[in-house]
């Protein structure tokens, strides 16, 4: 298979690149709505934004099954993740520790993934939602832990009804998935604790 021989490079300096990327991810999920750059110098495979690839390289390994849309799973992205992370690629969204979805695609829904259990709400899927841009979309207002008062964001390229799903995810708190919007080398964290409102 061509993909096997054409796997792009991962981190050149895994210890420090993953540490820097992790700190950006920690800020992203600690301060929801703030764009953070996760640039690990990684050449992402086709279909993954640089931020998506760097995030998975930083966090995923053989202990964390990953869900990808079929086209990505069967293409260079799947091969790249198998090679660099040693991660299993699963077909069932509910089994995934990490997932990558296209924000504009109608499926799968956020509720298709693992929301964790009542006693172990941490055992839930972290979903990387790839989107078209971090501005230019409809504005939503965020509130909750990590946000001093309110914070507005307007990412573009998200399916209709996406924010209702995110609000529904928050309503199930402490259960729920945690989201990372990804575009180019940026991420915006939307943990389950974040409340979603329409901009005033």
């Amino acid at each position: 298979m061509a993909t096997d021989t054409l796997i792009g490079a991962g981190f050149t300096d895994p210890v420090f690149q993953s540490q820097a990327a992790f700190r950006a991810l920690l800020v992203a999920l600690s301060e929801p709505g703030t764009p953070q750059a996760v640039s690990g110098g990684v050449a992402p495979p086709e279909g993954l934004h640089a931020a998506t690839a760097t995030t998975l390289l930083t966090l995923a390994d053989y202990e964390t099954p990953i869900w990808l849309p079929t086209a990505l799973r069967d293409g260079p992205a799947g091969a790249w993740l198998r090679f660099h992370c040693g991660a299993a690629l699963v077909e069932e969204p509910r089994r995934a520790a990490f997932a990558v979805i296209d924000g504009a695609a109608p499926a799968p829904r956020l509720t298709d993934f693992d929301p964790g259990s009542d006693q172990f709400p941490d055992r839930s899927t972290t979903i990387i939602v790839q989107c078209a841009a971090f501005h230019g979309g409809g504005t939503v207002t965020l509130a909750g832990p990590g946000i001093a008062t309110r914070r507005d964001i307007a990412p573009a390229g998200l399916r209709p009804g996406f924010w209702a799903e995110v609000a529904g995810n928050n309503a199930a708190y402490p259960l729920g998935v945690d989201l990372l919007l990804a575009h180019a080398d940026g991420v915006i964290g939307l943990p389950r604790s974040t409340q979603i409102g329409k901009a005033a």
Partner: protein
Amino acid sequence: MTVHQTLPGDETSPAYNYAYLDEQTKRMIRRALLKAVAVPGYQVPFGSREMPLARGWGTGGIQVTAAIIGPQDTLKVIDQGADDTTNAVSIRRFFQRTAGVATTEATMDATIIQTRHRIPETPLTEGQILVYQVPIPEPLRFLEPRETETRKMHELEEYGLMHVKLYEDIARHGQIATSYAYPVKVEGHYVMDPSPIPKFDNPKLSGNPATQLFGAGREQRIYALPPWTDVVSLDFDDHPFETSKAPHDCDLCGAKDSYLDEVITDDEGGRMFVCSDTDFCAGRRAEGHEGRLGGDQKSSKTFANSFEGIWPATAGAR
């Protein structure tokens, strides 16, 4: 995969990974940390590793720090508020050796502060990370020793037992007789143990611009408070939470609002009270503040309180 380095100044040590932990372990801890900030106050189980320092001596905090620290960081380590207590020195030395990281005693210069039992007096700022060493992460543990039961209580938000305990205190003593590790409720949901900080520090937990990470190594739990998280100390309408400290000013720097250590100065009832936060106290004295006994010695760091013991300042002073 892993980059090894020889410990600086220690030719005979085997090479260990940067910050001691292997990369797979760091990934596992990092995943736990991200879930912890996503569910503030909830205790995330993690595969705590054996560390070369004793369990119960800060291995949870050390693992958290090791998983987050990088070359761009400046680390401060305190125990009882002081940079020079033995265990703080030992842990700071560990990260100097294994991560070659820059260290500081100045609260405001640190990007990561690992602490045992205190929150610094100097207000923390955005971007700083406070890492707590936690002995018993479960706030309900002394009311119910079984993990299987306490986990159910958190699931059902069944915290009546805690309120009963606090209420019994009031019945017996006229007030809540908990002076440290005072339980808090996070964002109206999880009841959390803030680690054994004095309740004097509890108000600093809430709405803090810094990120607060808690690591319990022996008990294999990590939890977190993202910046600006709402944290409420448990109380009753007719017995509201109140902080407390020794009713004195610092004898060295004169601070009226800092947490104090009591130092016994002789066997005839003599004692002095000094800031537990040594950096805060030294900073105030450098600015010219003086306490009852601080006047003539304010430039000397030897008056900072520490674990090392108490010695006569001058022979024959008694």
